[in-house]
């Protein structure tokens, strides 16, 4: 992540007049980030005050049931930090999350678990997302143990069902991560995220480490999940084409702030903000 000192102050490119495309889901949000800010660093033990890095700056974001939301931006735009806050892996420095309209206190274990029963995550690097010393089956079972308290036979049955759903044979559950390719591991990562029946899955750059044809396999799986209904997906990516292929709504982030937000196809075909236009041009220039 780059320090803000490298570049002009973040206020310089703020959207004029706060224009926002109102294309939200009509129903009430399932999960909502309310003016969340996340700072890193700053302070210190012996009065050595360093300037804090503001990774996410006053972002409000509702997520409706069944909605697929894309978060795009360059590296350092705060999109991964926001994703980790949405599942409670990071606590906001200011602002809060609301689940079904009720504010969550993420300092409390009970509230964190309430959030995790609803929202799970798929990570960018499938290799580092699986404990190398556990079987992948054990990794997929973990949320069923920690969040549902299911007994072993029920867990085994669910693992077999999930493996079939992501296109793997049930006997693969007994293997260790090093026996799989990146694409297979990413599908197992998705199986783990789904294992405790969440309503929301946050995916942080889930296909950027994968080859084109393997990416297509994972995208096909995600499109299936979306079509199945009932599941809200938050898809973080720097690849506009992938986001466009998958998402209903998109949020464009720059230096921790939301620059533009709206229906995905509308924003990507007729952007209102210069910055979004720049991103689209950069992506178009070298696409045949």
């Amino acid at each position, binding site marked *: 992540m780059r320090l803000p000192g490298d570049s002009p102050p973040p206020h310089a490119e703020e959207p004029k007049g706060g224009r926002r495309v109102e294309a939200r889901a009509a129903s009430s949000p399932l999960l909502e980030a309310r003016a969340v800010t996340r700072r890193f660093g700053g302070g210190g033990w012996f009065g050595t005050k360093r300037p804090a890095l503001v990774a996410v700056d006053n972002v409000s974001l509702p997520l409706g049931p069944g909605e697929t939301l894309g978060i795009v931006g360059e590296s350092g735009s705060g999109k991964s930090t926001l994703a980790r806050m949405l599942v409670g892996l990071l606590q906001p420095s200011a602002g809060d999350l609301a689940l079904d309209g009720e504010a969550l206190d993420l300092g409390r274990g009970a509230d964190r678990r309430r959030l995790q029963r609803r929202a799970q995550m798929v990570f960018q690097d499938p290799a580092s997302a699986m404990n190398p*010393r556990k079987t992948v089956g054990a990794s997929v079972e973990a949320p069923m143990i920690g969040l549902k308290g299911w007994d072993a036979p029920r867990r085994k049955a669910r693992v077999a069902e999930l493996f079939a759903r992501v296109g793997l044979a049930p006997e693969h559950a007994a293997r260790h991560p090093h026996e799989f390719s990146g*694409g297979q591991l990413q599908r197992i990562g998705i199986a783990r995220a789904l294992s405790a029946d969440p309503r929301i899955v946050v995916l942080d750059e889930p296909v950027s480490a994968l080859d*084109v044809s393997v990416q297509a396999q994972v995208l096909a799986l995600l499109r299936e999940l979306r079509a199945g209904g009932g599941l809200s997906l938050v898809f973080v990516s720097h690849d506009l084409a992938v986001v466009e292929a998958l998402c209903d709504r998109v949020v464009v982030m720059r230096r921790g702030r939301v620059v533009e937000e709206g229906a995905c196809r509308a924003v*990507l075909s007729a952007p209102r903000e210069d910055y979004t236009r720049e991103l689209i041009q950069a*992506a178009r*220039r*070298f696409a*045949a």
Partner: protein
Amino acid sequence: MSVLVRLARQPFALAGLALVAVFAALALAAPLLPLPDPDATEPANRLAALGAAGHLLGTDQLGRDVLARLIFGLRVSLAVGVAATLAAALVGGTVGLVAAFYGRWVDGLLMRLVDVLMAFPYLLLALAVVAALGPGLTNAALAIAIVNVPFFARAVRGQALGIVRQDYVAAARLAGFSDLRILLSEVLPNVAPLLIVTAATTIGWMILETAGLSFLGLGAQPPQADLGSMLGDGHKVVVAAPHVAAAPGVVVFVLVVGLNLLGDGLRDALDPRMKGVESGAPQPATRVERGMTGAGSGPNDSAAVLDVRALTTAFATPRGSFPAIRDVSFTLQAGEALGIVGESGSGKSVTALSLARLAPTPPGTIVSGEVRIGGADVLGLGLDRLRRLRGDRIAYVFQDPLTTLNPLMRIEAQIVEAIRPAPGEGAKAVRTRASALMADVGLPDPERIARAYPHELSGGQRQRVGVAMALANAPDVLVADEPTTALDATTQGRILELFARIRRERGAALIFVSHDVGVVACLCDRIVVMYAGEIVEEGPARVVAARPLHPYAARLIACAPRLGQPDKSLAPIPGAPPAIDARPDGCAFAPRCDHAVAACRAGPIGLEEAMEGRRVRCIRWRELSGEAA
């Protein structure tokens, strides 16, 4: 299992294991052996020499049997060493795990306490502990355990710090696991090898330290024997009866050597970083073992700056040697840009690296073919001429500039190092050239960046530095191996623009390796599509991207999302590419191809000339392209 196999491959470790096993067996069996009572004194027979009747190793100054005392003393010393090691590992490991896991003030507090322990001279601290607790074997062991806690704590914390940042730990949190459960099930199993290695390499040291305390009379109390107290007793009579001190001295020496050999062997067997080392470090140039085939076949294309013929590079695997690329042929004219497209394992990087013999040996060997750069046969060059060719005639830009740049050198120094000065060119002139190069590749504020270290630059800036270094000696051929894969989309676009500008302005020939057909079609004149180590299609870049002839190329293009086409089907290609040692006989793509027929699987399929300057490795391209039209 593989740990034991790797251990068994090390003769020194095996010798250590044998020594330790013998000593351990002796110590365990001590009460069963036909030995006299080690504490029974016999003043009449004091200081008996080696081999005296009934006393194989003689007696000490109280007439006690040295052999019996030695074996019982060994038993005590081993027991104390093992107990102290286990205690230090348990406490130190816990401290290290907790410090790394909770971080912040917990880490600060625990590590400052550890620092305080380490600030005392080692033996002095042990002496202080014994002085406070009183002499005795248990207290000596406790003292030794305490002074060793910091080593375990620091080693474990260092390793655990890397593990707690892994995403699988985050996933365990999301699974609702408690902190204790995460520590035990996710973190501990991954630091356990280190803990075992640290214990195995310090146990010998701890036995020595306990012996030291006993030697000073602070450990084992009379009449109990341990190796240290025997040394202490023996040293009082060392002139009259040297064997009394020599016997425990030799045993301590051999025991500690054995433990250390075993510990080092265990470290090598358990440390994953050592796994690849079995095959040794790569050689400076890929080994070339061309047989009769390949070399010198056909007329050379003299106009080409780069002419590659029937290049085959094989990789050694535990199951034998298999070609990673086979029969790769292409030419590159001056100023031309060629894109090599393929997925992981397609052989595109091996092809690019083999051009300047940079494919790692082991495991790689170039087994046939020819590479000519400006007429010179690269595969036949000596190492000196090859080194001059690299950089001068052919230069590389790699995927991740963070791993190719030296983290401890300033940017300017690295660019200067890449420049080969002209005869008589001074240091100042070279630095001027370096800053011109930096301006050329569009680095903003060259003054500041010249003084910066790699980690202070953004990914895009680092890649520009990589390009500047590759351009330093105006090479004829620039090879870019996935130079934008590690960058985000916007930065990617800017770096691609840089390559396009370099082509326009410098006229260098470019080989651009990528997994993205769209990018290659925009940047390059021609495109080569590789699958399972073979070229499957070659032709003008835009034509191939728009109307591919090979079914694999067609599927690859069809499954990539394109901005502005949100409803594109993105049909995934079923299955996976074949492993290097499991290539099918006929077309390598046949098992995944919708159009495959029996003839496709029958035997090798050649790369055949198709329409206007295109080549394709498919027997059905004519009918399939007819279908499409």
